């Protein structure tokens, strides 16, 4: 294990960096931490209040950046619990560090400069596309910046360019696999050998299915924009868990915020080392997992986390996009006159996630002309799509038809469980 003093020094440097943001100065002063040197023991560090999405929201957009905007060369963002995204910033050094972290993970998988890496994660505010892209370039591989969508073209290029590594969400990988026949391409026409899949939860069953269809070894990668992006942890070919990169200090906490021993499942909380633009200090991932310390035969020494088993909050991941029920609620209420009784049904048709939102009619919104009702339906649908950026179905239903439990409406019905 890291020598205690070495760990504390790293944590102190992160504290020093975040203290450049006034919000953190105030927050840490409340627990008696004014200088990095106030962190004398790990217990002192554990006094520091956790950082959440809400902290980012309150400081939207750039309030938590620890470097002047002159030093920031890129921003990324992920969906917030309400309409405003959570924004993170990177210095030039941060981008290099991130690329190095991703490249190191790739190296453990035996990916080299000889590989042709097809990046089919979305490019844009989402960290997936560009995060993997820079890592693959750092490695010196040939990078194909495909971004998501346009499946037929993806497959054609995969065959014609001889892609050896595919990076995308696991559900899209499965979809690509299922679309091969339609595109008239056989698995044997492809040179794929490794797939690096993440940004949404998946199962062993899904791994087997993807491997069979695409003829590759499927690897799980984890990350979130608030702590860097993809690459925080990644499996090696042993697939015994996701090795956490040395630039992240993980804690696993119980619901009261107490540290849990190795192997016990709780919420993963992450502190970054060496990230300057947007350092993460005890950031709550809201993901449930367990961690253990050790050396793997792949050569990695450090923390390894298990595949994420669930969420602390009600966030859904639909086709790789983070969706909070509160966003849907906001969209519905913004249409006006509608009662906030809704149910989000998430399902999987074949390899693709589907979303349907049931909205209860009320006397105020009901109009006996079908045209008006369809209009209402369309308006709700467009609002939702504008806010979360995913296509959805909207169905108007009768009042009180959505089940309520203990007086509170059930917001989400996830029917994907048990399906691949």
């Amino acid at each position: 294990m890291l020598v205690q003093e070495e760990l504390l020094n790293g944590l102190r440097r992160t504290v020093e960096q975040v203290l450049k943001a006034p919000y953190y100065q105030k927050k840490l002063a409340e627990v008696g931490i004014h200088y990095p040197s106030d962190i004398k023991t790990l217990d002192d560090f554990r006094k520091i209040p956790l950082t959440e999405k809400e902290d980012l929201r309150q400081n939207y957009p750039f309030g938590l950046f620890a470097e002047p905007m002159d030093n920031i060369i890129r921003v990324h963002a992920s969906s917030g619990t309400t309409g405003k995204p959570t924004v993170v910033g990177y210095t030039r050094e941060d981008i290099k560090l991130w690329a190095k972290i991703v490249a190191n993970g790739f190296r453990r998988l035996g990916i080299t400069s000889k590989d042709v890496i097809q990046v089919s994660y979305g490019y844009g505010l989402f960290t997936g596309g560009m995060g993997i892209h820079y890592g693959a370039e750092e490695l010196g591989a040939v990078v194909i910046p495909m971004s998501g969508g346009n499946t037929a073209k993806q497959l054609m290029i995969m065959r014609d360019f001889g892609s050896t590594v595919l990076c995308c969400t696991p559900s899209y990988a499965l979809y690509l696999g299922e679309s091969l026949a339609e595109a008239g391409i056989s698995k044997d026409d492809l040179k794929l050998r490794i797939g690096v899949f993440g940004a949404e939860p998946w199962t062993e069953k899904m791994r087997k299915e993807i491997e069979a269809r695409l003829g590759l070894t499927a690897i799980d990668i984890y990350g979130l924009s608030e702590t860097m992006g993809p690459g925080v942890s990644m499996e090696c070919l042993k697939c015994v868990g996701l090795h956490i990169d040395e630039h992240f200090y993980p804690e696993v906490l119980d619901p009261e915020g107490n540290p849990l021993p190795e192997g016990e499942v709780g919420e993963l909380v992450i502190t970054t080392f060496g990230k300057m633009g947007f350092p993460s200090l005890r950031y709550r991932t809201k993901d449930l997992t367990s961690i253990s310390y050790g050396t793997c035969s792949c050569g990695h020494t450090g923390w390894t986390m298990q595949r994420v088993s669930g969420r602390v909050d009600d966030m859904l991941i639909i086709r790789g996009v983070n969706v909070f029920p509160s966003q849907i609620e906001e969209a519905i209420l913004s249409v006006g006159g509608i009662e906030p009784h809704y149910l989000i049904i998430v399902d999987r048709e074949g390899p693709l996630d589907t979303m349907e939102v049931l909205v209860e009619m009320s006397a105020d919104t009901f109009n006996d002309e079908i045209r008006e009702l369809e209009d209402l339906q369309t308006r709700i649908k467009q609002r939702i799509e504008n806010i979360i950026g995913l296509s959805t179905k909207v169905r108007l239903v009768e009042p009180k038809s959505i089940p309520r439990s203990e007086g509170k409406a059930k917001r989400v019905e996830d029917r994907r469980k048990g399906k691949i």
Partner: protein
Amino acid sequence: MLQLSVFLENTKGRLAEVLNLLAEFNVNIRALSLADTKDYGVLRVIVENPEEVAEKLKDRNCVVKLTPVWVLRVPDRPGGLAEVLNKLVSEGVIVEYMYAFVERENEQAQVVMRVRDTELMQKAVKKYNLE
């Protein structure tokens, strides 16, 4: 006249449930139309005391609405309805929806009509002396 409209989810037996409620309230349906889409439908009925019936249905968790409609008598012979409509069209009346029924006592054809502009309709009805 006020028409009573009820929102119906497209679920098995839902229409029967609402009709059973009307039976329970001892309401006689004089005219009825059902508009439907893939997911839901709208039941439109002409009944006695629609306000009272609407309240009762609301108490039983139905989404209801009272909509002003026109009920016109039309000659029960080929071209009868077309004649009436031609008159309305010439006055600029736009029909949102309509449905027909036959009054049993006097074997009279009647149509229930929802129009976009009530004032134009009023003028037209007056001009052509429609009932």
